[in-house]
């Protein structure tokens, strides 16, 4: 699902979603996204930065290109592997939020979010792989 504020940040030349200039990251969070009012990463409750999870998440190697009147974005698949305990010391992660880690004002604006459909616990030695497919985002 798309965060409503993202379209403003794109139109307002805040988020650069063309090419690979900005760094986008995927963060794991526990609270349900409110797409109408959540605008920055700080509006989300992330799992802790421990046991294989780094606070603010992992880079997705974002890139995008235009074909005709459509811009499509690609991303490299991301793996989170728990080591030394539950990933992020958490048993309540559920959502994966994508944000622009490059932008400083507003700090780390949100782009889109994915619901795993269940709270999850990534126990020690387990891996969560996020597969972005052929493309994960389009603007037309």
């Amino acid at each position: 699902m798309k965060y409503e504020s993202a379209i403003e940040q794109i139109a307002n030349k805040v988020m650069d979603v063309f090419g690979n200039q900005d760094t986008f990251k995927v963060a794991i969070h526990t609270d349900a996204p409110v797409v109408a009012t959540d605008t920055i990463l700080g509006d989300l409750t992330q799992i802790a930065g421990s046991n294989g999870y780094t606070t603010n998440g992992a880079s997705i190697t974002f890139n995008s290109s235009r074909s005709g009147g459509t811009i499509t974005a690609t991303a490299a698949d991301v793996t989170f592997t728990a080591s030394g305990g539950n990933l992020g010391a958490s048993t309540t992660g559920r959502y994966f939020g994508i944000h622009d880690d490059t932008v400083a004002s507003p700090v780390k604006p949100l782009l889109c979010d994915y619901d795993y459909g269940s709270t999850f616990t990534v126990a020690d030695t387990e891996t969560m792989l996020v597969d972005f497919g052929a493309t994960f985002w389009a603007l037309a």
Partner: protein
Amino acid sequence: MTPNRRLNLADEPLDSEHILACSRQPYLRVRDIVEGAGKGKWMAMLGGAAVLSCCRDPANYDIEAWWSTAAEKAKGPPDLYKFYCRVCEARVEAGEPDERGIVHDGCCKVAFCVGGSHPTDPSRTESRPMWEIR
């Protein structure tokens, strides 16, 4: 209060909206289907990220496919694939330590598909494997 179940990726908690799509099978039995859909990368990535040696051998895995939500089911193919390392599963069930000497609850790995096909380039189609065992 201590839950009477293992908290790991194999667990389906009470709030789960997951819907089983394809029954659990030995990975090697459906490998051609999975890799034919271009998802051979999953085992490579999961094996590459594995902490334990048993989790690097595809022969040790079972695979199961799910939809994350009813809305995803309405779209078609499953979006969530669970990989169970049978060696880890047996060890966890017995409460035995792993090769690091650590007792833990981990036995599962998940590939969660959030992307789709390219909207204008038919050569870049997102395929997700499904199987039916009769």
